[in-house]
């Protein structure tokens, strides 16, 4: 009973790995990464759970595999400040700012104010030439600019995840992952609303009892 039977979704790490590799061949594949933004959000908004993290997230699985099975992790406890709310929310906000900056760059190219910049920016600092993964697009160059920017975000977060995987536990990234924090926040909001509604229902019920009793 030690090993649980593997389900199809336990292999989604292959998808995540493929995604990262495809970005080295054609940057336009980066667009597919939007799925890892929208699916978790849709699941949490629609169902009020973290089904994405808990089941389908291939990135988490990849870290779990590399750090666990392949032993590329020291398996030490993550420091306290990294799991504190302010760090997690702070990182989420930082991530948002970077995301909007990426959208802004896309807009600049779209409006013609700037030319397409064929680089991938790692860790928000290092500009790596990435022209070899760009073979033109029949669409607007802004489509490619978005791809470069988005792939930068995906690769940067992978690098951060790998670093904390090595230093701390395999899936340390999940502690401060913006998608994880965001979906948990959505679940908290949903559950608070549900509680309120339930309380209201209970109150209404009591009220109707009281009315029946003629109090």
């Amino acid at each position, binding site marked *: 009973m030690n090993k649980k039977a593997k389900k199809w979704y336990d292999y989604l790490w292959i998808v995540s790995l493929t995604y990262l590799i495809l970005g080295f061949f054609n940057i336009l594949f980066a667009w597919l990464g939007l799925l890892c933004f929208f699916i978790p959000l849709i699941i949490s908004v629609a169902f009020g759970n973290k089904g994405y993290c808990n089941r389908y997230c291939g990135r988490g699985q990849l870290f*779990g595999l590399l750090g666990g099975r392949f032993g590329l992790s020291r398996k030490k406890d993550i420091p306290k400040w990294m799991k504190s709310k302010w760090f997690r929310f702070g990182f989420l906000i930082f991530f948002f700012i970077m995301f909007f900056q990426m959208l802004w760059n896309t807009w600049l190219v779209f409006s013609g104010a700037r030319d397409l910049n064929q680089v991938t920016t790692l860790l928000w600092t290092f500009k790596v030439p990435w022209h070899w993964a760009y073979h033109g697009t029949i669409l607007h160059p802004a489509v490619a600019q978005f791809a470069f920017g988005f792939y930068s975000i995906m690769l940067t977060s992978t690098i951060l995840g790998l670093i904390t995987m090595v230093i701390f536990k395999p*899936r340390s990234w999940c502690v401060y992952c913006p998608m994880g924090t965001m979906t*948990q926040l959505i*679940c908290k909001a949903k559950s608070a609303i549900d509680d309120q509604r339930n309380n209201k229902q209970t109150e209404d019920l009591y009220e109707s009892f009281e009315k029946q009793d003629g109090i």
Partner: protein
Amino acid sequence: MSVQKRKKAQVEQNLCVACGCCAKVCPINAINVYKGLYAAVDANKCVGCGKCAKECPASVIIIKEAAL
């Protein structure tokens, strides 16, 4: 059976990130993420093996003796 102490997993829920790594490794499904908020342990099922605590990336699970 009088008061008996058994080892059980306990989650520090306000620091839990609800990632579900614990639920993935628990051999008897005694721990699950509740509504995407935090992990909750079914104390009747849990055998205190400590697998979840080892896996938890936030290290917020402790294995503690609990009176049954």
